[in-house]
């Protein structure tokens, strides 16, 4: 990475880290401006500051958590549309076209429609949510998302009483997504689903940014779901369609391996994956000789969400 930077800045042998930092912020700010239509002057005036650093912190945000370094979060992505490893999506995802972007909301709603991303973002004030993020592969991180409540967006479409489930669909862009192009592994586009009460829960958000900046493409730009009490694969990236349904949708991983990845996928240390334990997790950014973290039921959000599953056998509905 350092070598690349030197190449990109002609005439300088050594890159001042500050310059590098500003350059990155600038590129991001410019991308954000294109996306959100923010005036270019605001971006230039204070280029060292991330664009959304001033958004209010949600009361749901866990301020006491130590945030995982952005570098780790941006270089470790399960984004199977681009690659099956976690390192390549960072570069491969840059070809994704995210502007213009619209989200279609339909199904069991009074007011179906297609909404431009700019309109959605201007109508739903952004907040910062510092959440734990637990992958089904037994690693975790703490991410400061910038987003808004999914429930609030759904309400604008006026869900009917018949709406019991929510189906979210990722973008289908095979020309920029290699694994969609060659039908790699999963059925594309990626689909995820929630029960309506899960989707309406205030913890469930759509994120447009993280670390005070717009979402990097490999992390799900321009808009992704974040459901902090469920395994990471539920938090679908690059959302283009939201449908409210009478019946539960079949999610991509559930379809691929129904005995391994359930519809609920709630974080639960007592229900192991058929092939590995979910009892503990490796927190990214924690060094060698640091023990793994004990995984918490509902990823530590039990107080807020346990009532949703009160009468359910969590071993059966995994």
């Amino acid at each position: 990475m350092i070598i690349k930077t030197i190449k990109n800045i002609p005439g300088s042998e050594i890159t001042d880290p500050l310059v590098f930092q500003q350059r990155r912020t600038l590129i991001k700010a410019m991308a954000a401006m294109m996306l959100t239509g923010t005036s270019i002057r605001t971006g230039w005036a204070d280029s060292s500051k991330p664009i959304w650093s001033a958004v209010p912190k949600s009361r749901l945000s866990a301020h006491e958590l130590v945030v995982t370094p952005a570098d780790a979060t941006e270089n470790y992505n399960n984004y199977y549309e681009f690659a099956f490893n976690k390192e390549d999506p960072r570069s491969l995802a840059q070809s994704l076209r995210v502007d213009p972007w619209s989200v279609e909301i339909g199904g069991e709603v009074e007011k179906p429609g297609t909404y431009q991303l700019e309109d959605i973002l201007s109508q739903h004030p952004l907040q910062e949510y510092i959440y734990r993020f637990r992958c089904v592969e037994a690693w975790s991180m703490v991410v400061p998302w910038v987003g808004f409540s999914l429930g609030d967006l759904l309400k604008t479409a006026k869900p009917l009483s018949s709406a019991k489930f929510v189906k979210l669909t990722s973008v289908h862009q095979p020309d920029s997504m290699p694994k969609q192009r060659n039908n790699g592994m999963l059925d594309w586009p990626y689909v995820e689903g929630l029960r309506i009460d899960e989707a309406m829960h205030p913890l469930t958000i759509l994120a447009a940014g993280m670390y005070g900046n717009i979402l990097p493409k490999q992390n799900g730009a321009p808009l992704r779901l974040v459901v902090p009490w469920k395994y990471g694969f539920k938090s679908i990236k690059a959302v283009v369609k939201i449908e409210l349904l009478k019946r539960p949708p079949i999610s991509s991983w559930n379809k691929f391996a129904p005995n391994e990845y359930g519809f609920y996928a709630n974080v639960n240390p007592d229900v192991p994956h058929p092939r590995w334990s979910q009892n503990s997790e490796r927190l990214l950014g924690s060094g060698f000789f640091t023990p793994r973290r004990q995984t918490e039921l509902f990823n530590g959000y039990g107080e807020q969400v346990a009532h949703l599953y009160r009468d359910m056998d969590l071993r059966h509905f995994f």
Partner: protein
Amino acid sequence: MIMQINNLRSLTIAVCFIPLLWVVFDIAFDNLGSNQMQALHIRLGDWALRFLWITLAITPVQTVTKWRGMTEYRQLFGLYAFFYASLHVLVYLAVDQVFAWRIIGIDILESSYIWFGLIAYIIVFSLGITSSKASKKLLGKSWKKLHRFIYIAAGAAMIHYFWQLKGNLAEPLFYLLLIFMLLGFRAVIWFKNKQLSQMMIPKGRASTDTESD
């Protein structure tokens, strides 16, 4: 001549330490990526597997090239498989879990992919500590029987590899293909020898021979 062979042997011993130096280098320069713990497990596990495969490749190579004197290299590579597998296990216990035995216990109990890794390691460990010429003499006929368990170790290591993945099977499939070739070679030789011995031995005795097999 002897000097040359000794040089080659020393060179081999040194070269086989390169993967370890490489890992140490990557740790020192923070090159292991976002999930360095996982990366370390994969790196050491990969090298244990590779050396096990190299060990299993010696016999076919010897048969094809007719170069005798590779037996000691088979032992050498086998010991390196043992060495890297031991590091792999040690890193899991000491660096990752930091000897938190309760969590280790649950982890092993609930993770079937670890069972296969454990089976492979127990075998590689047993073969490693009985690899010397002295134990070969001591164990006599049973030494060969014991060391045939390497095939089971290879199978268990393969399952250990496959079983922990979420879906991307390209890399383990490559190793699976290699092990099929290595074991397939042996099967072909075994089958040919059997055919040959059947042709040599009068019919009446051949049938009793196969029964006693």
